[in-house]
């Protein structure tokens, strides 16, 4: 049993739970509770229209599952079981609290009339889809800054503890608690749309959710070698799988999921034993996770069949081209160049051009690459990678003095020790060659 659920049991010991009834190690229950969480919390949110009530109801349902399932076995539809039990438990609580009131306010029990049997039936796919999308969308409220959106999604949808999220964002538990409380307060005030969304609204929600998932992934990906932060990548992939199962025909969702899987497949090769970043060209490709690569490539193939290309698909295709190459030397640079050109057209940005210049250098030499990025100096004047790349091109062309100045500039802009260390290797080489 995970610490999370174990603590939950202890905390609720006052509710007279007979611990002897709980099997010592029901890990299967744990994984079902975690996997069911988005569906259950989002359905309970639809019933109660209040985040805290929905969460408490979910917690209560989990407690009862931990007590009940070891003896009675796993229900046929665990999510439906948890929704029903959570809903009834919360309604009992509401009734007890308002004993003096003759009737529970109608809006609190809008679905009380449902027969139990029909509940399971009503949880058809489209309902479930809108519930989960709503829950994710609430976390992506435009009033919330991106970091709060992510924190809220991790807390509410993924069910990570405040401490876990705090560790991932490298802030104190108290600061994260406050951040989440504030975010919740803000969305409580905002209008949360509970009616079933129309097609336009739905696709806008989806876009917001997809962006949030990608931000979440990048939080983890750029974190370097910190396992607590890197786990954000796994969480992002888990959420993407969830969205993909609900919306199986959206090529950009397939593309995003593929992109994240292909990037994450290199996790074990990206850092050496000292935690230093290892460049793509130096990575031990045997450490790449072929399971993730195959799944990512399969998803990308599905996406491309739709003939509706988008930035996520193109970036996934770039990652897939790297993943397919047996060695760095075998990389199909021509294909990657074409993909970057497509990305530049879809999403013109100096960073994309900078990335393309690295490919241009392989195909057409440092001179051509340099010409490509010289106009970008103004817009990328604070960007580590710009001066790292330009320095490398200048160095190749024998313009050592300019290269050294760019490398110095890059070091001053480095955001991780690994970045700085990498540039220092170039500088050491210049010094050595000069001797």
């Amino acid at each position, binding site marked *: 049993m995970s610490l999370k659920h174990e603590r939950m049991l202890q905390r609720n010991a006052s509710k007279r739970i007979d611990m002897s009834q709980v099997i010592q190690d029901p890990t299967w229950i744990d*994984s*079902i509770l*975690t*996997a069911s969480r988005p569906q259950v919390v989002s359905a309970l949110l639809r019933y109660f229209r209040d985040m805290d009530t929905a969460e408490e109801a979910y917690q209560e349902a989990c407690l009862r599952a931990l007590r009940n399932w070891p003896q009675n076995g796993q229900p046929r539809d665990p999510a439906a079981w948890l929704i029903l039990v959570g809903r009834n438990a919360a309604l009992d609580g509401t009734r007890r609290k308002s004993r003096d009131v003759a009737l529970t306010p109608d809006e609190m029990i809008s679905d009380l009339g449902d027969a139990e049997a029909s509940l399971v039936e009503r949880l058809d796919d489209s309902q479930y889809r809108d519930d989960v999308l709503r829950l994710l969308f609430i976390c992506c409220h435009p009033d919330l800054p991106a970091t709060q959106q992510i924190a809220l999604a991790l807390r509410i949808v993924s069910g990570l503890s405040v401490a876990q999220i705090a560790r991932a964002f490298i802030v104190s538990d108290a600061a994260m608690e406050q951040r989440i409380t504030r975010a919740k307060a803000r969305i409580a005030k905002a209008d949360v749309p509970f009616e079933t969304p129309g097609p336009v609204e739905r696709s806008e929600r989806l876009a917001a959710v997809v962006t949030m998932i990608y931000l979440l992934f990048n939080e983890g990906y750029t974190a370097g070698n910190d396992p607590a932060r890197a786990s954000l990548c796994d969480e992002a992939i*888990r959420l993407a*799988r*969830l969205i*993909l*199962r609900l919306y*199986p*025909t959206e090529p950009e969702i*397939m593309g995003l*999921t593929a992109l994240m899987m292909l990037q994450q497949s290199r996790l074990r090769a990206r850092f050496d034993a000292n935690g230093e970043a290892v460049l793509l060209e130096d990575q031990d490709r045997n450490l790449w996770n072929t*399971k993730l690569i*195959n*799944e990512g490539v*399969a*998803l990308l*193939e*599905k996406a491309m*069949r739709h003939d509706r290309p988008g930035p996520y698909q193109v970036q996934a295709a770039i990652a897939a081209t790297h993943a397919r190459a047996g060695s760095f030397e075998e990389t199909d640079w021509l294909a990657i160049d074409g993909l970057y050109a497509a990305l530049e057209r879809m999403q013109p940005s100096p960073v994309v051009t900078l990335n393309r210049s690295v490919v241009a250098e392989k195909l057409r030499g440092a001179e051509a690459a340099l010409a490509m990025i010289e106009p970008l100096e103004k817009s990328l004047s604070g960007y580590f990678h710009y001066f790292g790349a330009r320095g490398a091109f200048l160095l190749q062309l024998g313009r050592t003095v300019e290269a050294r100045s760019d490398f110095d500039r890059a070091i001053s802009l480095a955001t991780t020790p690994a970045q700085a260390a990498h540039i220092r290797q170039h500088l050491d080489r210049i010094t050595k060659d000069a001797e």
Partner: protein
Amino acid sequence: MLYTLLCYNKEDVVWSWSKEEDDAVMARLNVVHEKLVKEGKLGPALRLLPTTTATTLRGPDMVIDGPFAETKEQLLGFYVIDVPDLDSALAVARDLSAANPTSIYEIRPVALYVPEARENAPKERVKAY
């Protein structure tokens, strides 16, 4: 008699297993596999990628993203084919569909392929009907 054992589980749970958890299950399964190989009982075995990677062909022209999800039809059989990509797999499925138009074909990439390991593996068709 040849039998097929079909394995069902919740893929969101299984594909969220950590590498350690996955390895532990595979190690336990491998013990069973090895016993079956020794006894000459194990034919080819497959582990499939999740249903999110599935594509379904209903009739020669209707390609649907996602797995076969109806409950009206039952699983009647399966093929393992070796082709370079999804488009080629779809082409094969289209041929099958043209030959057997009422059947639906779900195309799912194979995650793990354990080859036939029996010394006495049949070289000819084995029919049970």
